[in-house]
């Protein structure tokens, strides 16, 4: 849930709206905000499933230290969503275990 109005901080000047694709579905976000907050605002709290016990994880430290919030972003796994800003068209996927590196996607990026 967004805190649009606040007794101390006042009303928010929401920035530019963009769209990210989360597990195939379009989700509205604000350009430049951390992926994690866009997901939380959209009601999404489970970001990944662990390797050994297949347990759900989400935001824990919100500072980029604990690495619990990692997801696969534009084909790259282990991206800390709480410190990575959203860009329009970003592709976000629930990470399962350590994720899979998509070498072909990275190669396309370099040549393109």
């Amino acid at each position, binding site marked *: *849930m*967004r*805190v*649009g109005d*606040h*007794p*101390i*901080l006042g009303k*928010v000047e929401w920035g530019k709206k963009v769209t990210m694709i989360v597990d195939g579905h379009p989700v509205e976000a604000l350009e430049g*905000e*951390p992926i994690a*907050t866009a997901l*939380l*605002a959209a009601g999404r*709290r*489970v*970001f990944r499933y662990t390797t050994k016990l297949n*347990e*759900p*994880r*989400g*935001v*824990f*430290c*919100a*500072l*980029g*230290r604990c690495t*619990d919030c990692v997801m696969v972003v534009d084909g790259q796994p282990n991206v800390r969503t709480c*410190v990575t*800003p959203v860009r329009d068209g970003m592709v976000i996927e629930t990470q399962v275990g350590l994720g899979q590196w998509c070498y072909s996607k990275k190669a396309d990026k370099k040549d393109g």
Partner: protein
Amino acid sequence: MVEPMNKVKVAVVGAGAAGISASIEAARAGAKVVLIDENERPGGQLFKQIHKFFGSEAHRAGIRGIQIGTDLLEQAKEAGVQIRLNTVVYGLFAEKCLGLMCGDHTEELQADVIILATGASENTLAFPGWTLPGVMGAGAAQTLINIHRTLPGDRVLMVGAGNVGLIVSYQLLQAGAEVVASVEGLPYIGGYGVHASKIRRAGVPILLSHTVLRAEGHESVERAVISQVDKNWVPLQGTEKTLEIDTLCLAVGLSPLAELAWMAGCQFIHISPMGGWIPVHDENMQTTLPGIYVAGDLTGIEEASTAMEEGRLAGLAAAEALGCLSFEEGAMKKAEVRERLETLRIGSFGKGRSLAKKQILESRGTV
């Protein structure tokens, strides 16, 4: 081809209250200062502190942390401090050489003096269900609501009634969440009474001698079970209560972020009330390694006001060591800062910290 290494007089790691203050003093004395922070914006904890600070007028009493942060940054820019954001200091190597990771490449920065002001991080508490999404640090919740204007949930259980627990509970209320309860294992409140009164008046029960037993839920937190404990923190039979929540915040203390100081080989001392392992420093904030200084929560968990003063002290000492400040001027300015630090470490809350700081100074060479 090997690239030539960048050199700087003073490298300050961490652009929080202590780091910005240190860089201002060093730059005003005439040293070339680079202030480095891994985040995309500077200010550390200051921009999460939307409440008014206490203390004397000299310590910006009545002013909110966010305003202090903004003012400090202005002063740093005016003094000519070069601020590098989104830059991680990934290593501290021999001869005061810093390894920097800047997005897609790395660099090396050689400094004559390094000031570490890397702050502290939240402790955790492990119990069944603590890994469920919805369980997070109190500071994490604070970052989400005050900086990103997004609530992590609607019904919160706060574990811990120290200052962080009390303040974040109040800020959660301000952001529109319901704080179902605050549980504290000790039989007394660890934080300032004024914070506790505020949340009590807002209807939040502070349950002393209580702890959380477990968090439950299918894919994220849906409930928490709390119970009363005896003075040895052993749960008392028959006192279990289930609370319907969707967020559980842990406010169980902070520990210094001392990786770089450990890596460099600084001497450490363990003082539990100050957060655990503290890098030993002298009255100039210099560690046991010449040319490496420390300031702020890294040197023991205190407050923003002490962090700013320690930062100033380290900045002045660094400038003096580099010859930018004369011995007389340095001594005079440092004495002023030390006097202010003393006034911050008084009273029932400050005395313990004052003793701990003395312990740190006395431990040099003996630990």
